[in-house]
């Protein structure tokens, strides 16, 4: 057993066999069970009218219909409760002075932090593992499992969990007390919600612009089944940023000036890397229904058009723009990565409010419509491209599923009884062994 693995085993034990860890895992089980049950009930009720109607059935997709709402519970748990499990891993070492023990063993600050991050990652994997019965049950009910889309969804939540872990370690390294670190980390995590709320309430244009950079905005890609390079890089960079900050703060051997220099350099490098990664928009639609893509014929035609520029005379907070963005622009960006979009401001904006101007090869076309039916003829006319016929394409059938009420009790049994009892049994068994040995002393 290598020395690093000895440390890793210690850290895994520190996170898994604590009461906080146990309570969190039980909470994951309860919340996942409840979210899954509610989602399945709704999906089943709505499926009643779709089973004999193929056109209506096309709208039934298990991931957005069942699994995204199920993982929604995990999102809240990660955001509000995970810091309480992760922070003590580091803050208790600081408070109790055992960091002095670890650092005097043949471990560096880097080793200690890596072991703790790895243990936290295993804990995250465990929480994801607790959601796996959902897929098994869904399949047992006769439901369809779209693996690629689910992989994207789970990856997104794993990345989000890792983000919470990184913020927690940063807070634990920054503050002396566990309580302060917990409050600070939750504040940082919830900040993303506040920005999104500000955007939705149209508080300021600054918040609206900032909302493009929030964690929740980037998690949306994964929830929608889009494998986004930018969003993935965003999470990787953000996690690395907070882990590096935690590492620098943890190093008591550095002088204040040296620490500040390193912190500053990290912030600059992070912002630079983030800016560079946001320049590309490499996204792939992983959904079975290809719901984020235009029809194959339109996609093929779009791929033939040269550089496209769009001038938007509308505020980002305008509901029509949001509609335009969700139903047209995001789909377009999945096909064409190099579109130049200019959000007009000032007098120009007020003068032509609501207008969209499309430019291709020096020619331009204008419209006030945000509907693809109006936009495509303009674009294809400017590009001199014609759209072919959609033929031979397999139509997504949809997967409505009606489940009897009695069948749903198994969800309650698994998530409210079997999993929690198993977790408690493991915990009690481990502690009982200790108590018995202690009494024998």
């Amino acid at each position: 057993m290598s020395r690093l693995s000895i440390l890793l085993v210690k850290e895994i034990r520190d996170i898994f066999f604590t009461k906080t860890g146990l309570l969190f895992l039980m909470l994951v089980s309860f919340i996942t069970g409840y979210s899954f049950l509610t989602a399945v009930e709704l999906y089943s009720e709505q499926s009643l009218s779709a089973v004999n109607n193929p056109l209506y059935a096309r709208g039934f997709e298990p991931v957005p219909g069942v699994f995204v709402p199920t993982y929604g519970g995990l999102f809240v748990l990660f955001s509000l409760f995970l810091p309480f499990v992760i922070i003590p891993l580091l803050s208790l070492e600081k408070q109790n002075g055992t960091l002095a023990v670890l650092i005097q063993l043949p471990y560096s600050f880097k080793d200690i932090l890596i072991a703790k991050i790895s243990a936290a990652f295993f804990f995250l994997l465990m929480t994801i593992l607790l959601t796996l019965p959902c897929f098994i049950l869904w399949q047992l009910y006769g439901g369809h499992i779209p693996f690629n889309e689910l992989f994207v969804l789970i990856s997104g939540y794993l990345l989000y969990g890792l983000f919470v872990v990184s913020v927690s370690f940063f807070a634990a390294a920054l503050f002396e007390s566990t309580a302060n670190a917990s409050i600070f980390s939750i504040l940082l995590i919830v900040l993303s919600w506040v920005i999104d709320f500000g955007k939705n309430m149209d508080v300021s244009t600054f918040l609206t612009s900032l909302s493009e950079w929030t964690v929740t905005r980037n998690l949306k890609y994964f929830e929608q089944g889009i494998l986004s390079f930018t969003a993935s890089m965003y999470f990787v960079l953000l996690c690395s940023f907070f882990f590096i900050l935690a590492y620098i703060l943890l190093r008591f051997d550095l002088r204040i000036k040296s620490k500040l220099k390193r912190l500053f350099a990290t912030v600059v490098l992070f912002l630079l890397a983030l800016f560079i990664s946001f320049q590309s928009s490499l996204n792939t639609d992983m959904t079975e229904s290809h719901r984020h893509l235009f029809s194959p014929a339109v996609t093929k035609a779009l791929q033939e058009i040269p550089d496209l520029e769009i001038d938007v005379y509308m505020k980002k907070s305008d509901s029509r723009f949001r509609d335009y963005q969700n139903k047209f622009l995001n789909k377009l960006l999945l096909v064409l990565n190099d579109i130049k979009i200019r959000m007009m401001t000032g007098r120009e904006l007020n003068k032509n409010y609501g207008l969209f101007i499309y430019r291709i090869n020096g020619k331009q076309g204008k419209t006030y419509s945000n509907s693809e039916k109006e936009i495509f003829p303009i674009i294809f006319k400017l590009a001199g491209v014609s759209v072919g016929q959609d033929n031979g394409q397999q139509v997504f059938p949809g997967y409505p599923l009606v489940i009897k009420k009695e069948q749903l009790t198994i969800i309650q049994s698994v998530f409210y009884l079997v999993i929690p009892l198993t977790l408690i049994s493991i915990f009690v068994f481990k502690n009982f062994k200790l108590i018995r040995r202690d009494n024998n002393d």
Partner: protein
Amino acid sequence: MVFLKTLKINTPQGIKMLKISNISKRYLKTVALDKVSFEVSEGSIMGIIGPNGAGKSTLLDIISGFQNPDEGGIYYNDQPVSLFKEKKQLISYMPENLTIYPDYTVAAFIDFIQLATGYEDPELIKTLNLAKLKNRKIRHLSKGYHQRLKLFFALSNRKKIIVLDEPFNGFDPVQLIEILELIKEKNRQGRTFILSIHHLYDAEKICHYYTLIDEGRVVTTGSIETLRHKFGVEKASLEQIFIRALQ
């Protein structure tokens, strides 16, 4: 007085291996240490004594690399030792405010230290009397046994210098004799000790040299004979010298 006879101290006259030179440390406007300098001989036991708040723990933190001084430096065999990883190779430090993993059993902690360091000393576990409580959770140990576990950690290595901050806290008189003997034994094996002790009676039983610190400054340093001579109090106890020196 068999007990006192066994505690007879022979002052080693080894070479000056560790030099603490002009160490200063400030916390905002508070001066914690002000140009602290003294030397530690190889194979000796140096006692850092002084009233509460004198700066003893800060000094030990700096010697062991857990804090950086604002000025001054530490020299080992006349070579500067400034990086933490250099100090870590040389010095084992037991801080005073160390609470070892409360939810671990004694055995789990011992195993972890032994596996991580690759150093096993069954004699040390036996002397510290830890084997009989191996399955007890650390949170259920008495203060004395928790202190033993801290000593186990500090001594479970091959480092040349052992720095202990208040190592005798929490021991009853019988336990104290065992611990004093243990430190003396390790010292006989060639380890150099720097101990921060505020019970002067305990310090007198074990230390070869003393450095008296008050308000962050070194008041005096030397063996008890040197101090007696310096303050003109022949046959006085350490406590009497201490009071005289502070006056």
